[in-house]
Structure formats: C-alpha cells, structure tokens
C-alpha cells in the first residue's frame, strides 16, 4: 500500500524539477490528492499536465491507487 511519501517521491523522480504535495484523502492508502508544480507544465494544457502525472503511475491508477485527485500548475 503506497504512502503519500511514496506517491510524492515517484512524481518528483519522474518529472524533472517537480514539487509535489500529497495527502491521503481517506487514510486508507488508496485515495490520494496531489498538488504538483513543474516548470514543464508551462507548455502543456491542463489535461496534458494531468496526463503527465497519471503516466507516472501507469496501471497503478485504478489498481493499488484507486483515486489520485490532481491539481497541477506550471512553476
């Protein structure tokens, strides 16, 4: 079961220069909320920014990570 820290580290490792704040919405280790700030988002639409973060987790979204609520913005 991933922790908010695990989620944060995966995002920050996969997206160069990204900063993520992650909370566990339910305490159950499967519903998370992440706020992600990254300079590369400046060139992406909001939907592409979210896709970029979802892509970090691949099939884990909908698997061990039941929900990942996102708020993204450029640096």
């Amino acid at each position: 079961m991933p922790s908010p820290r695990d989620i944060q580290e995966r995002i920050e490792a996969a997206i160069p220069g990204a900063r993520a704040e992650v909370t566990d919405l339910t305490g159950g280790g499967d519903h998370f909320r992440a706020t992600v700030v990254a300079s590369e988002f400046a060139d992406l639409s909001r939907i592409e920014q979210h896709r970029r973060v979802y892509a970090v987790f691949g099939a884990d979204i909908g698997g061990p990570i039941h929900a990942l609520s996102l708020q993204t913005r450029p640096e």
Partner: protein
Amino acid sequence: MSENPVREAIQEAVAEHPVILFMKGTPEQPKCGFSARTAAALDALGADYAAVDVLPDPRIRQELSAISNWPTIPQLFVKGELVGGCDIVSEMYESGELAEVLEVKPPAGAPDEAPAAAEPGAPPLQIQTDLVDRP
C-alpha cells in the same frame, strides 16, 4: 460483426452527444463521489448532457480509457473532445470556464464553488445494453 463493438459504441455515443459524461452509476444514483461531483457541476449549470454508467460492463471503462488516454472515471466529453475528470471539471466550474465550454449561462442560484454532490436531473443514457448486446 465488428472487431470491437464496445469501442465503436463509445465512439458513436461521443460523436452523437455534444455533452456526454461517462461515470460510475447515474446522475440520480452516482456510485462514486467523483462521479457525483462531476454530474452535480453539470446539473448546477443546468447543462443538458448524456450520461453513461461504466459499471455494468468493465469493457466500457477499458475501451474508454484506451480511446481517451485518461485512466480514471468520470470523463466528460464536449463536442467529441475530452474535457477532463472531476478535478478539471470542478476547477473549470469555479473559474467559469465550464459554462463557457458548455455554452450555457449559469442559473442565478448556481453556487460559486463546485457542488459536493449530485442532484437528480439528467436522465442516464442506456447505451450499456447496446454495448453488451450489439450483434
């Protein structure tokens, strides 16, 4: 018989309905808080939309995500394009962009913040039976 009837039915539904929400459950009886919140945002704007419950057949969700390159449910499409899931729709509701995209004028009583839950309103679109039984 087509190669992938479920995918084709989804594509047809998206092409046919200018505003279509794929969700868990129905606007009247949502089965997930994220779906409930998204449907409620549309209802609060008085938008006309078609709704598809993805739960009756796991292939709907699988094919939908393959088409849209979006891993989660709900998914809102406007004029054939994916607008987003619950987070983006809620943000767009609050910024006024959602009303613009939907080409509706928010009703006088519409709350500034995205609503927390669904209110009864839009009728669900019963395409799941087609999806399963289409010859």
